[in-house]
């Protein structure tokens, strides 16, 4: 059993890797009412081409299957696991991202009982033809809901523009057509491959006794048997550094147009501290260039090119990475022209130490604020761990960043040829 203390943050994290490969982390949060637990597999929408566990042939599975599996794991022979949680005073949920699928609950009641339910339902799949068919109507409506959401369309449209081959460009939920092909056997095949304990992380945070909870999980796992762990082989086609498409316009029934711009990361293959440093550098730079206290923000706001919906972010995972900026705008083309001009202008000047320090302070404050949220801690810790990073290194890494780090990112990431644009425009009737 391991333990790490983060004195500056007043947090102690307990962890252990169990014999079956499952990594368990427990963080005590005194004074909170709620305990929050996530059970996450390192498997998401991009993992659609792989070698199934114990087989020799590679397979390609239908788009949207990781998300479909997430929905179906809740259904058991005795009924719906949602109901078991709510009988036990817990609310459960799940979500699927590009490379993770997380199952979670929060409760102010019996933690152990709900923890058992969480672990057991994720580790005991039950798929039938009938229940798989039933889900297609529900997910079909989920897909349509997103289709009508202009924020989602513009965000996803931008990612589609960036990638030639990488499956990050495929909508996480798939399409009504692609999910129609999913069978129960497909689900079992994905499940067997990606839900092995060695590919998963369990994170529990709340007003709990860490050692007691760790032992409890150990007991649960020692009573089950799993296949030997194997390295999972995933396949991705070679992705060019250029963007697939430099501009796309989607027409929808909206009153205010939307515009997102993005820069595709040329070498998204960092892990560990290197990745953290890079990710934080780009985000710090974005803050300096376009944060609310920047001259650029003021100009854009005054010119009516942005409003309070304007936001930006950089994210990178093993195999893909991009920055994006955007929101509602009266003039989508004016927005693109102005922002790309500002980025180019920024490259010409030297970086001001004062605004660097201010942006860093802001980022550190924002991170501390996030640590009020057990959900943030569990979800982000897991995401970081899958990329060999430690969430609690964020403040020291921020403190170690220097102006030259940010300058390097400015020259290498924000390249004209790596830029793409997606707009939602008002439909012409």
């Amino acid at each position, binding site marked *: 059993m391991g333990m790490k203390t983060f004195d500056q943050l007043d947090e102690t994290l307990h962890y252990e890797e169990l014999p079956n490969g499952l990594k368990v982390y427990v963080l005590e949060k005194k004074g909170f009412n709620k305990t929050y637990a996530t059970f996450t597999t390192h498997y998401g929408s991009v993992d659609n081409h792989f070698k199934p566990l114990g087989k020799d042939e590679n397979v390609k599975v239908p788009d949207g299957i990781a998300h479909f599996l997430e929905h179906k794991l809740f259904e058991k022979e005795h009924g719906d696991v949602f109901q078991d949680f709510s009988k036990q005073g817990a609310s459960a949920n799940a979500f699927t991202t590009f490379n993770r699928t997380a199952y979670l609950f929060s409760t*102010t009641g019996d933690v152990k009982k709900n923890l058992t339910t969480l672990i057991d339902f994720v580790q005991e799949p039950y798929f039938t033809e009938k229940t798989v068919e039933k889900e297609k109507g529900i997910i079909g*409506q989920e897909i349509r809901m997103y*289709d009508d959401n*202009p924020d989602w369309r513009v965000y996803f449209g931008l990612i589609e523009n960036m990638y030639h081959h990488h499956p990050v460009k495929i909508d996480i939920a798939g399409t009504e057509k692609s999910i129609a092909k999913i069978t129960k056997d497909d689900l079992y095949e994905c499940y067997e491959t990606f839900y092995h304990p060695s590919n998963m992380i369990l994170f529990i945070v709340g007003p709990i006794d860490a050692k007691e909870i760790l032992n409890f999980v150990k007991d649960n796992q020692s009573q089950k048997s799993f296949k030997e762990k194997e390295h999972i082989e995933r396949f991705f086609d070679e992705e060019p550094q250029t963007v697939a498409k430099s501009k796309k316009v989607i027409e*929808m029934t909206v*009153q*205010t147009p939307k515009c997102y711009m993005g820069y595709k990361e040329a070498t998204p293959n960092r892990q560990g501290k290197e990745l953290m440093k890079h990710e934080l550098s780009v985000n710090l730079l974005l803050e300096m260039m376009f944060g609310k206290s*920047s001259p650029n923000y003021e100009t854009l706001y005054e010119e009516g090119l942005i*409003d309070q919906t304007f936001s930006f972010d950089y994210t990178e995972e093993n195999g893909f990475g991009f920055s994006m900026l955007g929101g509602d705008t009266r003039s989508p083309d004016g927005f693109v022209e102005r922002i790309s001009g500002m980025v180019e202008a920024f490259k010409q000047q030297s970086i001001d130490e004062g605004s660097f320090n201010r942006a860093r302070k802001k980022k550190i404050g924002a991170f*501390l604020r996030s640590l009020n949220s057990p959900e943030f801690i569990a979800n982000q810790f897991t995401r970081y761990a899958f990329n060999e990073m430690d969430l609690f290194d964020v403040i020291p890494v921020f403190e170690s960043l220097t102006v030259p780090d940010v300058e390097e990112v400015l020259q290498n990431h924000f390249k004209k040829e790596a830029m793409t644009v997606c707009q939602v425009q008002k439909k012409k009737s």
Partner: protein
Amino acid sequence: MGKLGCRHNERGTYSMGIVNHKKTNLHGMTVHTIETKKYKTTSFILQVKEPINEKNVTKRALLAYVLQSGTKDFPSSKELRSALDDLYGATLNADLSKKGENQVISIRMEVANEKFLSNSEPVLDKAFHLLSQVLLAPPLEGDVFKEGIVKKEKRSLKQQIESIYDDKMRYANKRLLEEMYDTEPYRLNVYGNGDEVDSISSKELFDYYQEVIRNDKIDLYVIGDISTDEMVEKVSKHFRFSKDRKEDETKAVNARDEKRISEVKEIFEEQDVQQGKLHMGYRTYTTYADDDYFALQVFNGIFGGFSHSKLFMNVREKESLAYYAASRFESHKGAVFVMSGIETANYEKAVKIIKEQHEEMKKGNITDSEFEQTKAMINNQVLETIDHPIGLSEVLYHNVVAGTDRSIEEWMEGIKRVTKDDVVAVAKKVTLDTIFFLKGAGTNGNENV
């Protein structure tokens, strides 16, 4: 404000169990302090309330935008934001909400607790000062708000109002309220009317602002690892209201919903969307201050508040008609709203199923497990909500809006005491008023290059 009244410098404590909440009246403002060590930040929440009304609704929305755009010392958004960044990225935002027939401006600020910062800078006092300036020392030009700021924020507010149309769920909800409450103030949108924005002058807005800080009910919540005495001292130091400040008590809303429904209103609208949005509004004739409020909570929970509720189980799980089918309720207006995203062709079927679930509840067809699960979930929900500083302040602020003095323990006890008969009695009072359906024509989102 219940037995603690509005007299100066009087202090009361309640709900010592789950949260340590103290109230102090200072300069006609109520200061609520909650001492807790569980956060890494200190939160300030200012709530400024007045009854929503046609005359002021848009002005008030614009005021919220203008206030967060600068102060006398930091007379532009950029300067104000730089000052916040220097306070270790303190956040500041002003927001609007409708609580019953009140339009509330919430100004929230959150600062890092200095003990977690490497070089322990004293950020708390500076934060206090800045917050007081946002409310009491706005950027002026002559005797009115700076014209440049007002102009920019008008544009932002108009864009905010327009964006409601773009989010079809919000749009359908707005349309439901307009139809259902066509003669009541509750129909008004909290952001006001888009076509009134341009005509508001800086002078007019400033006159209204002065009225607001003179007469509106103002509550300040401070939550974090703080001491009440220190906070009260800081409030006295920084929050200086003019001498003629006097809360206008005639402004308190006590709108009992008396409207009886003879016929359900059914409104259809068509747009080019993939999914139809079904929104249904019910009158409940029960609000936060009422004894059967707890039974209404449980009613809503069984009806559509959770994933074990009748709406989710029947509309989604049994019939696969929707991804979401839920209900929520508004504590101070006393309304229940149902929403579901469905195929346009399934309208009749979905409405029938939803109505049937309500009928089942009137007949008392509620299983023991539905009943117990719901109570457990409500209990869980309130405990989880108060884990978050904003959630906690919202839970406590209900008392201010309703003029009650209920502790969180009393609240939880109230839920515990609800019987199935109480729920059935509430179900019988709950009456469907209006159905709004945004029909889909189904070609939304054509792409071209």
